[in-house]
């Protein structure tokens, strides 16, 4: 039996698009404080990394 193939995903169509403003996100950080992503940037460029899991 052939090994299953890795699905081919088109990330141009998945999630927020290049050229759009990144949506507003408000979540708790590692200190338990609610963080508003655009506010915490304070008008600076940012890198937003989607990590799989800190547990796995």
């Amino acid at each position, binding site marked *: 039996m052939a*090994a299953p193939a890795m699905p081919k995903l088109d*990330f141009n169509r998945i*999630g927020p698009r*290049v050229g759009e403003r*990144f949506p507003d996100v408000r979540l708790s950080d590692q200190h338990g404080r609610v963080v508003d992503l655009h506010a915490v940037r304070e008008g600076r460029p*940012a890198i937003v990394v989607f990590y*799989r899991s*800190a547990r796995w």
Partner: protein
Amino acid sequence: MLGDFAEKYGITFPLLSDEGSDAIRALGLYNEHLAEQAAFYGREARPDQFGVPYPGVFRLDERGIIVAKEFEQSYRVRPAPALLVERTPGAAPAGLAIEKTVEREGVSTTVGVDTATYRPYEKHEVRVALELPAGTHVYAHPVPEGYAAFEIEVAPFDGLDVGAARLPEPHSFRIEGVDEEFRAYVGRVEAAIPFNIVPYQETATLSVEVRYQACTDRLCYPPDAMTVDITLQGIDLVRD
């Protein structure tokens, strides 16, 4: 739990927790393909693993506009940190941790890798730079009949995952008296090949082949090819 993780690895930037994956879902990044991706690695995704996002990176400018987006097909493959940072305006270039230079007929070829070590699934780059003397050019694809184009390649081996070579945009020019347009490179030519290696091994050797044909206005040298071997030290995955 994020607090412990941040402390353990000395992380000072915000780590945001999306328990329940509501934000991940709202952003359209819920990984719907986890089961298939796990199956590719011969594994079955556990129930507690569902809810993760597709792993990737968004780059925002000062206005919060997305200027770049880098996602991987596999949830296991990630860009090496130095390469991720390097692509940020104002950041230091990653540089080459190992490099070897070959000089032939006035053409200097440097082959290097951004790292001396690798972790399984960590994406690095082989970087090749040609320094051509004034008056010398090398051809780019599509190449006139009878000539050889500049190409770079990493020899395959089990566990090596190689991406497409990135070559710069060549110049178009015509030679006086010849009714054909050529595409060629002059000066400094930089190219790269992304790669990642899957199994942990103590060392892994990349065999990089560089091919080109150098010409001046008056003559062409025979096509040249060279192989440069670069050995990386393996570091195993962090296993908590």
